[in-house]
Structure formats: structure tokens, C-alpha cells
């Protein structure tokens, strides 16, 4: 407690500290919300300037940007179906349908509150248990467990966003197959590249997501406009009630735990957290068929988890020197610039600095709640802009987002091709969320699968030899069997009704 108070005092007792805190908060929110210009862009731009800042402000700035950036991307995902970054993509699965149902403000309310809860709980856990948890997680979760965890996550994906199980599985397989384009993770062998240089780098996540969500949405709504069937989303400023929040308590607890543990795992972090949490929300729901149609739990689960992952990501970073992603790797650079090295000794050598980071992330999570409540009342009015003007704007922003990541025009072509494909797939009841989850979880999963297979002497049955991976695989297989059983049962009951 004493350390936390010291950290807080160091941030908020000077005008400069407060200014940097607020600047980082707003910068993260804005950059997180613009597709392609995510917080990494901001963090990379700011990195050279940190050399001239006192160490405590530099590290505090990165903590604040990290927390607010993860939340920022939810706003555009909810309002316009444009996820600001990959970890906000699952928020769009139900957030945007909520907007279409006239519940944009509620969706933002859920997102902001749950982001704040996830981030705050995560920051508190981070303060209490950095060292023991880091040791447990890193020693227990190896490639076998991570591969099993991703398999476990994939088993519910097919049920999201499509009423037909076969079409859900086909969507998932399509996503997984797209994820294999490029080089294989074992030896860098080119796969499905057809000698095209662009394909050898793999198909980018962000252009794919922008195409499947934003562009296909513009095409679908544009078609409705031309045919006179377009319905403007209703603008409401209703914030979720306390009882509505209370009904989400288990989803919040479950997603915080998932986010926390995903955040600890190096290299996976917030993206896996958001996707797994969404999948688990579907798995545990009594009404899984409502997911993808504007179900609040579909917003609560990923937003809680991706923010819970931010605090957890600090654990391997600080205790073991293992960054969970690009932004945490930049934090190592900030420490290095100020002649410090992250690792087990950081808690001794730079204890004050570490507690400034903890305190800044805690207060940033709470500040998001305050900003978000105000924001949810105001930002929904963007929906009053006529779609005729919004459509070209969305296309231009998405194009800039797709191009800005790698400066490659073929990413923009990919985005539009994905958009056109997404338009036809959505019309035919295929699941866009399953495709996206297939691409992302497939790539993460294959890396772990290859490492696991090598460790297991290529014997897949070895997945059942450790308690964690065995449990995950068994429950995953049971989930698949259950979903098939349910579908067969519902088909039979339909047949009986017909007779």
C-alpha cells in the first residue's frame, strides 16, 4: 500500500505528471480508435522522446497509453463495425448489432465499464502477485498447453454468427486456411504463395478485419440504401442500469480470469484474451444463439478480458523480462534508455519506478470509466450523420488504416477483396466472426502446435498426458460432440413437428 501511494504521489503531485497522464490517456483513446493508427504507432513515435523525459514519466506514459489504447478501439468497433485493433474485433461481433438495434450507448457503457473493471482488477492483481504468478504461469504453460488452450477456444467458434453448424465450421476452416498463407512456422517453407511476393508475408490481419467488417458493412447497408430498405440506427443515450451490470457479474469475473491468464502468456496477450473470452461467454451462455445478434455479454466478455490482459502482461515483463507484445517490448526499451534492465531484480533496483507503472495503470483504468461515461453520452451522436456521408468516410478511413500498417497498396486490395467476399458470405449466412477467429487463433495455434508436436515426438495423444492440456482437449472435444448432438436433436424435433 505504501508503495502504491508513493507511486500515485509521484504521478499526481506535479503539473507535468498530470499533463503527461492526461495526454497519454487521450492519445491512447484517439490512436486506439483509428484503424491502422493503433497505440503502437503512437508508442513508436513517442519512443525517442522518452530519452529526454524523467524515467518515472516515461514509463508512466507507456502504462497509460497501453491501458487507454486497448479500450479506444472498442468505440469504432461498436459504432461503425471498424475495430480499432485486433483485440477489439470480437467487440464488434455484438457491439455493432447493438448499435443497429438502437443500443449504441448501452454497448459503449458496457464496454467502458467492463474495460475499467477488467483493467482495475488486473492492476490490483498485478500489484499483489507479480512474482509468484509469473513463475507459476511461465513454468506451467508451455507450447503443449497453449496449443490445447487454442484448440479449446476454437471448438466453440463455429457456433458464433451462423445458424447452420456446417456453415459455421466452413467459415472457421476458411479462416484457418487463410491463416496458413505465407511461410510455415517450422522451417519457413512457403505455402499457398504461388510465387507472389506479397503472399509470402501472409495475409495481414488488419486489412482482413477491416474488409470483413467495415467494407462488407458499407456494401450491405449501401445496397439497402439503394433499394430503400435501409434503417437508420436509433440514437439512444441510455447507460446500462445497475441490475443489467449485475446480471453480467459472472461474465466479468470469468473474462477477468481469462484475460489475466492470457495476458501473462508471452506472445499472446490481449488478442487471445479477447477471442477466448468471447468464446467462453458463448460456451457458458444459456442462450448461445443470441451471440452475434447484439447480445450485451458479447461486448462485456472481450472488453473485460482485453483490458485484464494489460496488467497481467506486466508480470512476465517485469518479473522475467519477457514482453507479451510489441508495446510491452517498447516498455523494455524505455527502461533500457534509462539504464535499467527488466527482470527479476527490477523490483529491487527500480522499485519506485515499477510502482509508478502499477499506479499509473490502475488510475488510467479508473480514468477510462470517467471519460467513458461522458463519452458514451456524446459520441453516439456520430450516428446521426447520414449513412450517405458516412459510407465514403468509412471506406477512406479503412483504406488509410489498411495502408498505414505496412505501407503496402496490396493490403488495401486485400481489404476490398475481403470486403466483397464478406458481403457475399454474410448474405449466405456464413459467420464472419468465425473467419476472423480462425485467422487469428489459427496462426497462434499453429506456432504452438509445431513446437508441441516436436516436444511430443509427433504423437498427438501426448496432448492428454498433462493435466492442463488433457482437460482442455477433453472439454474441447466434448463441446464439439455436444454441439453436433444439439443440432441433430433440433433437426429431429423439426422433423417431428413437420410430420
Amino acid at each position, binding site marked *: 500500500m505504501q508503495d502504491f501511494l508513493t507511486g500515485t504521489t509521484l504521478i499526481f503531485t506535479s503539473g507535468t505528471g498530470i499533463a503527461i497522464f492526461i495526454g497519454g490517456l487521450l492519445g491512447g483513446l484517439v490512436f486506439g480508435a483509428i484503424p491502422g493508427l493503433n497505440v503502437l504507432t503512437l508508442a513508436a513515435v513517442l519512443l525517442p522522446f522518452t530519452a529526454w523525459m524523467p524515467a518515472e514519466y516515461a514509463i508512466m506514459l507507456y502504462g497509460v497509453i497501453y491501458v487507454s489504447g486497448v479500450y479506444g478501439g472498442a468505440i469504432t468497433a461498436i459504432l461503425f463495425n471498424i475495430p480499432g485493433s485486433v483485440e477489439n474485433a470480437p467487440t464488434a461481433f455484438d457491439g455493432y448489432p447493438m448499435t443497429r438495434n438502437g443500443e449504441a450507448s448501452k454497448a459503449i457503457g458496457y464496454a467502458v465499464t467492463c474495460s475499467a473493471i477488467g483493467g482495475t482488477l488486473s492492476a490490483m492483481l498485478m500489484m499483489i502477485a507479480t512474482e509468484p504468478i509469473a513463475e507459476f504461469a511461465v513454468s506451467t504453460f508451455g507450447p503443449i498447453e497453449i496449443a490445447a488452450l487454442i484448440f479449446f477456444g476454437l471448438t466453440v467458434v463455429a457456433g458464433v454468427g451462423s445458424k447452420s453448424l456446417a456453415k459455421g465450421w466452413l467459415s472457421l476452416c476458411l479462416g484457418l486456411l487463410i491463416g496458413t498463407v505465407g511461410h510455415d512456422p517450422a522451417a519457413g517453407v512457403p505455402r499457398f504463395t504461388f510465387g507472389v511476393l506479397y503472399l509470402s508475408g501472409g495475409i495481414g490481419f488488419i486489412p482482413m478485419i477491416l474488409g470483413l467488417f467495415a467494407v462488407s458493412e458499407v456494401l450491405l447497408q449501401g445496397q439497402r440504401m439503394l433499394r430503400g430498405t435501409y434503417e437508420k440506427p436509433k440514437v439512444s443515450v441510455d447507460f446500462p442500469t445497475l441490475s443489467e451490470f449485475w446480471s453480467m457479474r459472472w461474465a466479468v469475473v470469468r473474462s477477468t480470469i481469462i484475460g489475466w491468464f492470457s495476458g501473462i502468456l508471452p506472445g499472446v496477450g490481449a488478442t487471445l484474451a479477447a477471442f477466448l473470452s468471447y468464446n467462453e461467454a458463448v460456451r457458458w451462455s444459456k442462450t448461445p444463439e443470441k451471440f452475434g445478434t447484439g447480445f450485451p455479454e458479447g461486448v462485456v466478455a472481450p472488453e473485460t478480458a482485453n483490458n485484464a490482459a494489460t496488467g497481467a502482461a506486466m508480470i512476465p515483463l517485469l518479473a522475467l523480462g519477457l514482453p507479451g507484445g510489441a508495446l510491452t517490448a517498447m516498455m523494455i526499451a524505455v527502461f533500457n534508455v534509462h539504464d535499467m534492465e527488466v527482470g527479476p531484480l527490477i523490483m529491487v533496483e527500480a522499485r519506485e519506478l515499477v510502482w509508478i507503472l502499477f499506479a499509473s495503470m490502475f488510475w488510467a483504468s479508473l480514468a477510462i470509466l470517467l471519460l467513458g461515461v461522458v463519452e458514451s453520452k456524446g459520441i453516439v451522436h456520430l450516428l446521426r450523420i447520414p449513412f450517405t456521408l458516412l459510407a465514403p468516410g468509412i471506406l477512406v478511413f479503412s483504406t488509410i488504416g489498411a495502408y*498505414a500498417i505496412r505501407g503496402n497498396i496490396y493490403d488495401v486490395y486485400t481489404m476490398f477483396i475481403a470486403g466483397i467476399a464478406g458481403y457475399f458470405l454474410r448474405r449466405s449466412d456464413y459467420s464472419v466472426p468465425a473467419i476472423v477467429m480462425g485467422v487469428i487463433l489459427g496462426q497462434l495455434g499453429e506456432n504452438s502446435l509445431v513446437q508441441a508436436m516436436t516436444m511430443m515426438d509427433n504423437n498427438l495423444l501426448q496432448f492428454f498426458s498433462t493435466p492442463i492440456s488433457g482437460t482442455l482437449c477433453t472439454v474441447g472435444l466434448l463441446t464439439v460432440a455436444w454441439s453436433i448432438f444439439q443440432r441433430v436433436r433440433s433437426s429431429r424435433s423439426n*422433423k417431428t413437428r413437420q410430420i
Partner: protein
Amino acid sequence: MQDRKRSLLGDTVFWEAVAWLVLAALAFWFSRPFDKPLPHFSPGAAFWPKIIIGGMFISAFILLVGRLSSQNRAVSEETVAHLEDVPDDLPGLNWRLIAMFVLPLIWVYGMHQMGFLLVTPFFLIAYTWLMGVTRIRTLLGFSLGFYAALVLVFYKLIFTPLPMGAGYFHTINGELLALLQ
């Protein structure tokens, strides 16, 4: 019998299943060049893609069989009926709808050749008009105002690298950029 055959040939789900089977077969065919054991990973680079292709094949087969069986046909029809509210009237496709799909691709090609700065105002005007804005004042006001805001934010404030075009257009864009910044 003839009726059933005819209804099957006009059935989109049947053709979708066939398309998925063809895609799975093509993916399998194209995985052959890298379907070899690797020094440190004997299942080879095609191991994972082949699992996916297998899954795709089974799912497509289930879709096809499900469609062929009358019992699932009822379910499928019920499903499709309440899922997508976009009217499925392909004969009603008009040139504006086609332009909605094609115009962005032309814009990207133009951007590639002539640069973002030069082609984007024309795209904004054309797409806004296509979406149904016909009042000249609104059309130009929105398109040019939005373009000015884009230039201000992405070129003046955050210096985002955007396509500069090729050849002579690259030089023109470079000069415009120097003027702006």
C-alpha cells in the same frame, strides 16, 4: 425426379457446398508442393493445412448431405429465411450497385498510380453521389471538407505515409506534400 433435379440445380446451398468441395480439393492440390517431411518437423509444412482441408471437406460434405435430405432442407430454409434481411433479388442488381463494388477498386488502382492526394477528392465526390447525395452544394461541401480534414490530420498532424503514385505522379505528389508540410 426431373423436378427434384431441377430444384437442386437452382438451389444456392447445393452450389455453395459444391464450391466448398472444389475449394478444399484445390487447396489439397496446391498443398502438394510443400507436403514433405521437414528436418525438425517430420509431419511437414502441409500437416496443419491438411487438417484444415479435411475439416473443410467434412463440413462441406455435411452441408451437401444435409441439403439433399428433406429433413434438413426444412431446417435450412427456416434458418435462411430469418437470418439475412437483405432482399435476395439478384435480377434487381442495377448499375449503381455494381458501381458501389467497383468504384473503390478503381480508386485504389488510381491511388496506386497517381497517389492518394490526387485521386481521393474524385472518389469522395463519386461515392457520395453514388450513395444518393445529389445536391451539388452538399456533395461538394462534404467531399471537399472531408478531404481537407483528412489532409490536415494525416499529412500535417500525424505524417501518415500514404500512396504517392508512380512515375511523374510521384513527383507531383512529392511537390504537393512539400507545399503542405
